[in-house]
């Protein structure tokens, strides 16, 4: 049998190395993705990210955001310059607008939604919507 030359041996090993490289890169990619997901979860960003499935904004919300952009020019309070009574009046007017928007959010984190009554733990047995629809159809 003919002995393989150095370059032929290299080519033969190269194929194996390519497979090892592929496997290693997949393992590294999985490990780094895992670490990234763990950080994403532990940092609490997962609870704010509304781009994740089920947390996409509603259609009306998208319209609202656009309306805001089409509206008046954004108010900016300059960090420098002489401070006058008019500046403060303008400042207060715009600040109150923002506070009104905060107040418009009804009962944020109110305790009623987790009450026994709301969850149906004290009242009558609830039937899931899908099951109720099925029973009506029958």
């Amino acid at each position, binding site marked *: 049998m003919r002995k393989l030359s150095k370059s032929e041996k290299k080519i033969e090993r190269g194929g194996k190395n390519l497979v090892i490289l592929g496997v290693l890169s997949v393992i590294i990619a999985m490990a780094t993705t895992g670490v990234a997901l763990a950080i994403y979860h532990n940092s609490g960003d997962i609870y704010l990210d509304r781009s994740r499935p089920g947390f996409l904004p509603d259609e009306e919300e998208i319209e609202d955001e656009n309306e805001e952009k089409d509206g008046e020019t954004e108010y900016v309070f300059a960090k420098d310059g*002489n401070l006058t009574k008019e500046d403060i009046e303008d400042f207060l007017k715009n600040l109150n607008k923002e506070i009104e928007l905060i107040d418009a959010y009804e009962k944020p*984190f109110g305790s009623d939604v987790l009450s026994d009554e709301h969850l149906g733990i004290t009242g009558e*047995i609830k039937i*899931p919507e899908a099951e109720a629809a099925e029973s009506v159809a029958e």
Partner: protein
Amino acid sequence: MLKRCLLVFCGVLCLLTCATGSVFAISAEQKAMIADNCTVIREDLKKVQRSDARARVYLGGKYELILNKYVTPLNVRLVENSLSSVSFIENQNTMASNKMKFANDYVEYQQRLEELVSMDCKNESEAFYKKLEEVRTKRKKVEQDVKEMRNSLTKFVELVGKLKETLNAKTK
């Protein structure tokens, strides 16, 4: 004498155990309700989770905007105009720490809520209710943070109102 003391001690211990136990005690009826309504309760909790995420993003965004576009620039300008006061700086610090507290408490609350949603309420109704109580406590904390933030906003508006009066008097 020793016997009597021991008896009284045991009695007090029994009372204390009963009192603490009753905090999480649920009736057999409630247990049955949780098991029977399990699917609906979990659906409701998921809805709460989604609407809370919206509230957190909305309110957090507004707090950030007020701090960055109103509170901080005004304080910088006050310093430049030699009108700075301790109350304005104190208020800014309170607002910043309230905002931070709100964000941290919200994460803690959501972590508990997620644990609750993933629990098997059909077979572990008692543990489920116990966790629900925990979630309620965390939610109350977040609600309190929102109220505290609103109070610091009111105080900020008051301070700006007083500043307006000062500037008014100066121009006269």
